[in-house]
């Protein structure tokens, strides 16, 4: 079946650097994508979303890029801070019931 996947299981960056987390999706009919952050012992926390009629969306220190041609999604975090250390998931929304399909997650580690 089709699924959302991540290229890198672990990303280690220096505090203050920019981080880029990537996600590949295979279902071209998906029309809505969300990035979540999950800290240890907590539920997924919404970061930013993007719809398929857009290719870029910016939030506070975060930017999501969507490339529908190659079915690729990325999350950019500017000036990464220790508090950004967590597992990051991309998720796609395809079904009429708004089922989210999650990727496997990337662990971001920020070195002070």
């Amino acid at each position: 079946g089709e699924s959302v996947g991540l290229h890198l299981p672990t990303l280690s960056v220096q505090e203050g650097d920019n981080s880029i987390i990537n996600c590949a999706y295979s279902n071209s009919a998906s029309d809505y994508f969300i990035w979540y952050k999950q800290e240890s012992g907590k539920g997924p926390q919404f970061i930013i979303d993007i719809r398929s009629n857009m290719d870029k969306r910016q939030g506070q220190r975060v930017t999501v890029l969507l490339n529908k041609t190659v079915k690729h999604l990325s999350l950019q975090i500017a000036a990464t801070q220790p508090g950004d250390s967590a597992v990051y998931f991309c998720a796609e929304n395809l079904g009429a019931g708004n089922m989210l399909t999650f990727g496997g997650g990337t662990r971001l580690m920020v070195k002070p």
Partner: protein
Amino acid sequence: EPEVTQTPSHQVTQMGQEVILRCVPISNHLYFYWYRQILGQKVEFLVSFYNNEISEKSEIFDDQFSVERPDGSNFTLKIRSTKLEDSAMYFCASSYRGNQPQHFGDGTRLSIL
């Protein structure tokens, strides 16, 4: 900021027993969801619920599972006869509209002995 709350945070149950996991979604949200995450694996969709009925369910959500919104604030997931493989974190989520961000609670860790 409004949040989704889940109780209990940890539930330990004997195999074969019934368990009910409880959730209070964000108050003005209309769509409700359950997901689960087995240790070390992806978050998996179980079921979505809108207007007092199931909108969509995954193949995980078999006859042993049921959901209910017994009043205006609670949303529950019941597993009738638990199996060892039901051990996981169970997350409740809600959204105001269907194709909008789903906000998650911090989960219930279900341990089946």
